[in-house]
């Protein structure tokens, strides 16, 4: 009896523990149902405000569904070491390129380190790493280890940056993990816009500071494009044509960001103009002055009055006569600065135009067009993008950015971003800003310009401040963009799996149905074959499933499609232990032993077989877990938990029932 009491307490505590761990899953389900019932967004927002922390807590502790069940994206990215080497090289010549290509080819399917292979290829050509990397005094082994640690560091930063970006993007329950030395695993449940996410993931280390081309020059080029597209003669371009005679956007742009220099001790600005700037500035901030005289003195933006002829044309006329300027609208501020805007609907066609060979031939070799990020205002209800004409060769690449931080300037409540550059970068930056005062420098990430502030003064020391963002969100975004510059390693996608939401739904249905069907069949079979005892085994089976799910929830593990397979399999294996025991008991009963003794001996004799067979299965499960990837691990985990739980449920729980019954003096128990 004492033994039984202990077993009962043990069973009950496992039961309570499982229910405790499974409660958040139930809670989450409840919340989701209630949220679903709230029709409008306001109500659900209010509901979330009220119960937010509970909802999040439940969500955090529930059994999570794998990507294959709820749909989403699974991406493995790795550091593109070849690109990294190219970026880091002091110079690149034919030998370098050839050795690198050879090394890429050689490591395509092998596990060898690209850097090692590359070095070998260089050595074969009579050169060493020293020729392309590191300082003059460095020896090869130092350069080699520096390069390798660069790879290691970059993946660490990539994890951070990708996480930043994903958070920014707003995916719920993302998984971002470092895997091995140079891989990054990203799991994004519920994401279906793969292209966007991929850009988000891969848009690394392509931060460039590009000089914005003088609007007059850019205009001349665009005029050429316009004339060409209208079928006109390029030679007969009307030189008198000016910026005025063009179709213009009617939107009132509020474009207000600026860069200033900060000294570390004065990160908190006390000298800020409160008036909204209308152009972006890079200005030097002087600590000793109360007000910053360097700040642009432009007033509110104002669209030029559309007196010009082109604007008075009908849409159709403009489309034919000025095909380029119809798509790319000019916007001019009173201070003379000019921006170009493209509507969402025209963006693709402008991109296509720019890709055309004959168009590219008309654009000077040192110039290119980049789009801005989506503007935060609409034009006639449509999204709008800025188009920038920039110098193709970047003044500086983002690698020099050591740190970036967004903040609210307490002096005037304006969002600002502090940018810190490395010492080498600072020297270049001083030269660049010094020689481009009053010109704009575009901050371009992944060929998308995020901001193009005006340089107001030479910035020495490498600490700049970008100001004039509309809000802290915009500043945050710029911070992320700049930080991406501190990540010199480009990532490439090594593996990508996307599961559409409807396949996930199908899988849930199929998985649920087959689990229940298998459970029902097995349970029915046990009752038919072993009668009362079969029923007892079925109860143990239910406990088993409950324990497995409870452990799964407590591990914060994820349920996958193979995981469901593992669950079904453990249902099958779970009854095996009881079959072994019952067959033994039947044998003993057949040999004429009394019920109580038969049960005693049955359990005793079956134990070694159950134990050994479960242990060997657990061993293979562990190995499967060790070597498998994502979904397979889910399968192995459930199988292992199921097998361990099985040792308990089949041997202990069923035994309680039989012991209690025999102790009560029952001599007839139906074993079928």
């Amino acid at each position, binding site marked *: 009896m004492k033994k039984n009491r202990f077993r009962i307490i043990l069973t009950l505590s496992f039961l309570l523990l499982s229910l405790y761990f499974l409660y958040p899953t139930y809670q989450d389900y409840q919340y989701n149902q209630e949220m679903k019932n709230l029709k409008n967004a306001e109500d659900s927002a209010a509901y979330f405000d009220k119960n937010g922390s509970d909802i999040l807590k439940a969500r955090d502790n529930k059994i999570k569904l794998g990507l294959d069940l709820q749909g989403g994206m699974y991406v*493995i990215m790795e550091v593109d070491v070849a690109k990294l080497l190219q970026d880091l090289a002091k110079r690149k010549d034919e030998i370098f390129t050839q050795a690198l290509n050879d090394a890429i080819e050689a490591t395509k*399917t092998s*596990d060898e380190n690209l850097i090692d292979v590359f070095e070998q290829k260089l050595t074969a050509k009579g050169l060493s790493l020293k020729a392309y990397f590191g300082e003059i005094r460095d020896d090869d082994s130092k350069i080699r280890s520096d390069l390798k640690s660069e790879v290691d560091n970059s993946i660490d930063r990539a994890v951070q940056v990708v996480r930043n970006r994903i958070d920014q993007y707003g995916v719920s329950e993302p998984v971002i993990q470092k895997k091995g030395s140079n891989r990054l695993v990203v799991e994004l449940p519920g994401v*279906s816009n*793969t292209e966007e996410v991929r850009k988000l993931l*891969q848009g690394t280390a392509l931060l460039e500071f590009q000089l914005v081309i003088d609007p007059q020059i850019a205009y001349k080029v665009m005029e050429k494009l316009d004339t060409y597209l209208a079928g006109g003669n390029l030679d007969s371009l009307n030189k008198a044509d000016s910026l005025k005679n063009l179709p213009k956007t009617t939107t009132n742009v509020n474009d207000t960001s600026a860069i200033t220099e900060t000294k570390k001790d004065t990160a908190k600005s006390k000298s800020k103009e409160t008036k909204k700037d209308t152009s972006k500035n890079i200005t030097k901030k002087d600590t000793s002055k109360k007000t910053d005289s360097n700040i642009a003195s432009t007033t509110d933006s104002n669209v030029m009055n559309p007196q010009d002829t082109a604007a008075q044309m009908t849409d159709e006329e403009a489309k034919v006569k000025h095909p380029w300027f119809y798509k790319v609208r000019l916007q001019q501020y009173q201070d003379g600065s000019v921006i170009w805007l493209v509507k969402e609907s025209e963006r693709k066609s402008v991109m296509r135009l720019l890709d055309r060979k004959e168009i590219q031939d008309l654009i000077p070799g040192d110039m290119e067009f980049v789009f801005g990020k989506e503007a935060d205002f609409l034009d006639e209800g449509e999204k709008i993008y800025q188009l920038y004409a920039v110098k193709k060769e970047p003044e500086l690449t983002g690698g020099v950015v050591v740190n970036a931080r967004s903040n609210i300037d307490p002096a005037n409540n304006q969002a600002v971003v502090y940018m810190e550059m490395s010492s080498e970068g600072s020297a270049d930056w001083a030269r660049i800003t010094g020689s481009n005062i009053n010109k704009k420098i575009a901050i371009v990430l992944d060929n998308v310009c995020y901001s193009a502030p005006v340089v107001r003064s030479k910035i020495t020391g490498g600490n700049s401040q970008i100001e004039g963002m509309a809000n802290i969100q915009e500043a945050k975004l710029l911070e992320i963009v700049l930080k991406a510059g501190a990540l010199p390693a480009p990532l*490439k*996608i*090594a*593996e990508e*799996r*996307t*599961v*559409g939401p*409807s*396949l996930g739904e199908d899988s849930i249905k*199929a998985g649920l149905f*087959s689990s229940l*069907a*298998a459970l029902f*069949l*097995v349970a029915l*079979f046990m009752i*038919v074959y072993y009668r009362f005892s079969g029923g007892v085994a079925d109860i143990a089976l239910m406990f088993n499933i409950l324990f497995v799910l409870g452990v799964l929830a407590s591990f914060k593990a994820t349920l996958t499609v*193979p995981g469901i*397979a593992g669950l*079904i*399999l453990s*249902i*099958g*294996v779970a*009854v*095996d232990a009881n*079959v*072994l025991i019952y*067959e033994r008991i*039947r*044998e003993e009963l*057949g040999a004429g032993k009394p019920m109580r003794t038969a049960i005693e001996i049955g359990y005793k*004799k079956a134990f*070694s*077989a159950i134990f*050994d*067979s479960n*242990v*060997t*299965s657990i*061993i*293979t*499960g562990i*190995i*499967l877990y*060790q*070597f*498998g990837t994502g*979904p*397979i691990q889910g399968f*192995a985990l459930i*199988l292992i938990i199921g097998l361990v739980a099985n040792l308990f449920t089949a041997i202990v729980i069923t035994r309680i029932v039989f012991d209690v019954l025999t102790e009560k003096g029952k001599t007839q128990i139906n074993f*079928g």
Partner: protein
Amino acid sequence: MRILQNVNIDFLTKRKIFYFISVALIVIGFAVLLTNGLTLGIDFKGGNEILLRFQQDVAIQNVRETMSKIGITGAEIKTMGNEREILIRTSEEGEGTVVTDKIKEALKNDNPNNSYEVLRIDKVGPKIGKELRTAAIYATAFSFLAILIYLAFRFEFVYALGSVIALIHDILMTLGMIAIFNLLFPALNLELSQGMVAAFLTLIGFSINDTVVVFDRIRENIKLYKNEDILKVMNRSVNATLSRTVITGGALFFAVLVLFLFGGEVNKSFAFTFLIGMITGTYSSIFVASAFVVDIKKIQQRRRDAAKQHARPAAFTKV
């Protein structure tokens, strides 16, 4: 209800016949495997795979034309389950998912009135495929080693060896059978994927489970019937566990059959592999693992007898 109670079938006397059957089936299976090959899934081969569900039925021929239009030749195109779901697989390489994006775009343009929904897109780089392959081989090898050690410790080395030989038999047999089924019923879409590797490892688990149960009874009976011939003891043990083998095997078989029939496309090749594996796993416990132990024990017995005969007591004799 009782089945197979108190049976007494002589399984092991005719073991040579079953050796022959096993070897013959494996040879046939491998002949098919080597000539026809086993379809390697994207997990192991690398490449791009895209599964689309169209609103209406699509002719594979049209999809093929679209593919050749965009310059992707040698793509594998097949329907999955019904004519609306199309699986396209290419080994074309491209950065990220440019290849699948191209395919999607082209199919959208060529089927303006029949829109589709993306069920699944997979891209696996060649390096990853190789790593998965290596991992699968390691996993199998390590599980063999672990089982060998554990059983040698719990039973005798001969038993451990017999079990592992039975496992190798199961794997070879299942591989061969999959090759044969793949040839005969291509609609099953059997291919070597991560799921199938999981099935192989699970069947290792199941097969060893079954073998251990039989061996456990042998271990017990050898102590009980010390003077009985090893063949007899083993036959007795196999018969004693037969009802359990059939019941558990049956219950599990139905559970996995349900998984195969209704568990969805993802679990299909897993379930099928495991169904085959269960049959050979049960078979091999008796006709490979136990039979092997019988043969080795017999050889050991003969050696002992021969040694007894040779070893005459030392004695002086008169010459």
